[in-house]
């Protein structure tokens, strides 16, 4: 019984901690691009990496203040979105998908390469750039606090609080945008691009704006993640995370303001619960060592996510709170 409670509290912490914020922001970005506009960005993690490294590189390598680092991260995401969108947004949907997945993998390889070590720290990455931010916390950051049976350090709480405020503001922004004429145009682009074009709207520009906006949300996610872990390592930004965010979005419900947030919290809770549960079962000897080892558990989460993604899309593409008619699945 005690173990179940432990696993539950670890899972609860994962569902509320900075990782849930990270995936929420990634998924909010994807929601703007995929859910509302119908763009397939399969490289969202690249935007997050630019956000995280924007802060890390600015603070540790260029000796700039933390807040300038945030601006650098946002600028990086905007530039990447423009670079990817310019050639591909005029083409069929899967061209953007291919270009973004390639960009995410390519950028990670670039950041971890030996020749980039002087800027990004290579495979070891960068650390110790969040002191200015943590120092802003209104409470003691070195003490531990206990909330709902979970234990948090002061710094974690601070990152969590700021992160959830960013998530809430992002949701408000998305809500307002989607009520505005802009939102109606992008949603009609998702439904029928040619019809929108016939009405005299510049589809290309709207798509580009959605891509940039979603990318900036992703960059904020990467910043929260980098500040939360206190380090920025290229290999943390594996592209599998993009698909974790897709799974979260579809689980919660695409084209819904709160879909990505609910999906991310729930998905991380479930994944972490499965993770801790499996580890406990293995260490107790319930699952024999020959079948699964503790090192395999990290891979299991992606197997579960992949399976979940497939089954959700086939059997319940609208997720928990979505509307089937609003989910963009029949693209050109």
């Amino acid at each position, binding site marked *: 019984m005690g173990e179940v409670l432990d696993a539950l509290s670890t899972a609860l912490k994962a569902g509320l901690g900075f990782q849930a914020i990270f995936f929420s922001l990634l998924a909010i970005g994807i929601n703007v691009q995929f859910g509302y506009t*119908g763009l*397939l960005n*399969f490289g969202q993690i690249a935007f997050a990496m630019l956000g995280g490294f924007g802060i890390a590189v600015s603070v540790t390598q260029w000796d700039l203040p933390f807040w300038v680092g945030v601006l650098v991260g946002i600028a990086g995401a905007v530039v990447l979105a423009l*670079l*990817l969108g*310019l*050639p*591909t947004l*005029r*083409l*069929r*949907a*899967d*061209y953007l*998908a*291919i*270009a973004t*997945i*390639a*960009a995410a*993998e*390519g950028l990670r*390889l*670039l950041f971890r*390469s*030996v*020749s980039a070590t002087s800027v990004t720290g290579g495979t070891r990455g960068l650390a110790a750039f969040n002191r200015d931010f943590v120092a802003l916390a209104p409470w003691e950051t070195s003490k531990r606090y206990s909330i709902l049976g979970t234990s948090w350090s002061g710094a974690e709480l601070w990152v969590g609080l700021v992160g959830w405020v960013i998530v809430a503001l992002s949701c408000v922004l998305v809500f307002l945008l989607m009520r505005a004429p802009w939102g109606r145009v992008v949603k009609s682009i998702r439904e029928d691009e*040619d019809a929108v074009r016939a009405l005299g709207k510049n589809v290309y520009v709207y798509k580009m704006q959605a891509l940039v906006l979603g990318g900036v949300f992703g960059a904020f996610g990467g910043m929260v993640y980098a500040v939360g872990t206190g380090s920025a390592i290229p290999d943390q930004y594996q592209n*599998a995370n993009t*698909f974790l965010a*897709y*799974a979260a979005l*579809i689980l919660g419900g695409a084209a819904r303001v709160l879909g990505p947030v609910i999906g991310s919290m729930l998905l991380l809770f479930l994944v972490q619960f499965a993770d801790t549960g499996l580890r406990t079962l293995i260490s107790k000897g319930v699952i024999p060592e*020959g*079948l*699964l*080892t*503790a*090192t*395999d558990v990290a*891979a*299991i989460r*992606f*197997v579960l*996510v*992949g*399976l*979940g*993604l*497939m089954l959700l*899309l*086939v*059997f319940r*593409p609208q997720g928990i709170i979505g509307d089937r008619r609003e989910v*963009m*699945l*029949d*693209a*050109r």
Partner: protein
Amino acid sequence: MRSGGRGRASDRLRIVVRLFLVAAFALGLATLAPGIARAEGEAVAGTLQTSRSGPIEGIEVTVETADGDEVDSVESDEDGKWSVDVPGPGEYVVSINADDLPEGVTLSGEDNRTVTVAEGRRQFVNLGLEDGSRGAGGGGVRAIQLLVDGLRFGLLIAMCAVGLSLIFGTTGLTNFAHGELVTIGAVVAWYINVEGGVPLIPAAILSMIIGAGVGALNELGIWRPLRRRGTGLVAALVVSIGLSLTLRYLIQIFYGGRSNPYAQYQSQRAVDYGLFNLTNRALFSIIISVIVLVLVALMLQRTKIGKAMRAVSDNRDLAASSGIDVNRVIMVVWMMGGSLAALGGVLLGLSDQVQWDMGFRLLLLMFAGVTLGGLGTAYGALVGSLVVGVFVQLSTLVIPDDMKYVGGLLLLIVILVIRPQGILGSRARIG
């Protein structure tokens, strides 16, 4: 513009999908199970070799703990291999004495590496060695060497990508799980070859047959039911990503995160052909790829089923109305794509060792090749992949070796700007 609704939802779909998942899981367990009960104590190990010198024997390798206490020092054996058992998980420093190395071989980096050994793992350490075959020598000769390497690599990509392109052409599916077909081919051949003790060539043929089977399972278990259900192309694309994740990490669980060589053809010296050096396995890789690709081209051009494939990929409805059994053609395309990808995987494993994510890393280059050639055309995939392979290798003349895939990505984006329909594609396809 394509529309969804190609058929009505079938009640049997759920059962079929579930059965497929169970079957795939069981198949995976059955073929991959021998790999589970390995590696009991922690160890560090590695191989000292370069392409020109072959394996290097008798080099002293010293392993110390992070505090500087020596654990052991061993000499590499006749295959250049060395292995040291360490007392437990943790950080270790592996070093060799640079003065021991034979003439012409130098260290490309520092003479020691710090590695972290996880519990129960055999950690492989790569002490980078340089034999002058890259970097040194006349610029022209190096360019030719890279061109030949690039041709080998491009042919390999082409073999894997033909299936990807034909599947796109016949079904409209952008299959992100195609890389896993490559990995499955390589891993299955590894188990048959290393664990089963079967020579590599029959193992490769077996793995091609299994690859065809996996392709057929893909089509029967997932894509045909989904088409019948009228699933949209974007939904299918995301499903293929889920499939790719699932398969990739299942392979990691069963096969492990290590990279392993095949049991044969590993310790070959490069043969000097004047302008370039080539190991025999690279030469045979080129020959095999050329033969296979010529056969594929002949099949597409001459045989009935090949013509049917091109017809379906050109215009599905027209092909169907002129009496071609579209589902059968698609089935053959999947089986062919699966077995070609498996063969490509074996050849890739031969040159770069077998790894759980090798196919996924190749996928990026396959997409670059297929896009360059024109999505959906078989010959386009051939031409495009060759160009990508050569470009990626030649780009190391200018950019560092570990960034060569980034060059492939840049090429992809440049193609999309200049000629999105690819070399052989038609404008109408890109929307």
